[in-house]
């Protein structure tokens, strides 16, 4: 693996399968009495969150702690970031504290890339979501969840599996990372959204697109619903929430058209009643809670593979 994890596109198929296989071994840790491994003893992981996040930050924190790393949480609220400190000065501070990895979430697309390639820090940088760009560990945990339910034999093989990603693709870093990673792993991805919520240039992505949810989901092996990110919307992307929900929401009626084995996913946070109805979210097809559990194992795998061995050019 490379030194940083900035984009799902950085992962070759071998890299991605290595992460998923490692995660599969690490997942059993959750069932043990002592949920601790010594691999990252003495390493420092900084969670640098410029945007609000519950599950991603907690998940990274749990992952780093279970690998015995020291964790420093750094969020924009209540730090000098809210006083107007620049990314560069923050980075220099982290470098001075000797961080081995920086897990960064930022509202601006490309901020983790800037951090990794500016020369400000020597640590590994893990993108935990940047603007509307990418969220590679979410894609990895989604792929992990998919391969546990739909995988054929080897961890990570999703050859020929059909995945529908539905909703606000335009503002979704999850959709972009998933489209790239799932294509790498051999799945056939279809993005389903109203024309206003598909990004410009989606024709260059390794995916199909559709405006018609009812036509796509009966063939899908997995349906991934995306949250409508109203906080990022400053125009009219659809007439009314009710109309959006009727055309692109997953409710009990649509769920009845799914194949027997098809699973329903959501990266969270969900808006029940908007993109997904409560009965679907709580149904036994829904693997939404399992996605959270798998997130810890996948993030442990990423941190272990980035930091567990000899650091490239490091002193150890």
């Amino acid at each position: 693996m490379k030194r940083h994890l900035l984009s799902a596109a950085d992962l070759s198929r071998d890299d991605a399968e290595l992460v998923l296989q490692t995660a599969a071994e690490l997942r059993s840790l959750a069932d043990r009495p002592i949920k601790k491994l010594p691999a990252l003893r003495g390493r420092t992981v900084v969670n640098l969150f410029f945007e609000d996040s519950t599950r991603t930050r907690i998940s990274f924190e749990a992952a780093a702690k279970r690998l015995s790393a020291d964790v420093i949480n750094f969020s924009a609220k209540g730090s000098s970031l809210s006083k107007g400190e620049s990314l560069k000065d923050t980075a220099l501070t982290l470098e001075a504290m000797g961080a081995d990895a920086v897990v960064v979430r930022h509202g601006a697309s490309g901020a983790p890339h800037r951090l990794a390639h500016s020369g400000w820090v020597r640590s590994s940088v893990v993108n935990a979501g940047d603007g509307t760009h990418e969220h590679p560990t979410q894609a990895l945990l989604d792929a992990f969840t998919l391969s546990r339910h739909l995988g054929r034999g080897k961890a990570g093989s999703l050859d020929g599996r059909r995945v529908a990603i539905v909703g606000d693709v335009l503002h979704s870093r999850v959709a972009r990372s998933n489209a790239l990673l799932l294509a790498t792993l051999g799945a056939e991805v279809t993005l389903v959204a109203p024309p206003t919520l598909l990004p410009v240039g989606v024709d260059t992505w390794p995916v199909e697109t559709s405006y018609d949810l009812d036509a796509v989901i009966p063939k899908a092996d997995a349906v991934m619903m995306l949250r409508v990110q109203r906080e990022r919307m400053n125009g009219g992307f659809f007439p009314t929430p009710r109309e959006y929900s009727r055309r692109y929401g997953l409710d009990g009626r649509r769920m009845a058209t799914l194949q027997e084995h098809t699973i329903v996913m959501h990266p969270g946070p969900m808006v029940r009643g908007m993109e997904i109805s409560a009965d679907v979210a709580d149904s036994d097809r829904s693997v939404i809670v399992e996605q959270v559990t798998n997130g810890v194992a996948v993030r442990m795998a990423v941190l272990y593979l980035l930091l567990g061995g000899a650091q490239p050019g490091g002193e150890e």
Partner: protein
Amino acid sequence: MAPVPAQPEAPPGATPEPGRVVLDARDIARALTRISHEILERNKGAGDLVLLGIPSRGVPLAERIAERIASVEGYDVPTGSLDVTMYRDDLRLKPARALLHTEIPEEGIDGRTVVLVDDVLFSGRTIRAALDALNDLGRPRAVRLAVLVDRGHRELPIRADFVGKNLPTSLVERVKVTLAGIDDVDAVTIHGEPGAPAGERP
């Protein structure tokens, strides 16, 4: 006079050099049968035993010992595997390694006699790592060690309780265990005669 290699060196990826066969399939079978009986004798039965193989080749060895114990005692000994990668003291000396499979039997290891099973005992560092790993999994009543080959050169105060064969070796030699199931045949071979460049340590 410098030793002349009998055969030209095989290119990488081709059939590996044959090496000197120290144990063949029947020797290995006899050694495992003896180890199984020794375990039973020492433990006074199979009652609270758990066999944990260290991947990759310790695992099929543990399974074969369990089969032999089952045929003698009519009792299925819980068998699993214990990956020690994250507990190794040389973890940071190489790029991050892929993890191997860990599977602890449902009964757990608390209060039981755990027999660690590995193919070759060399520096003892793998076993130290395994003891640390066990420590995070529970508190066995006792931990024993069974190995197919003890080749000496210990770097830690660790010894095996059950040994298939003591094999005096030089540090430059490499001991290779192949087992049907993972490899083609059952065999223990020695590669790299003294005087050859040092091989990779297991």
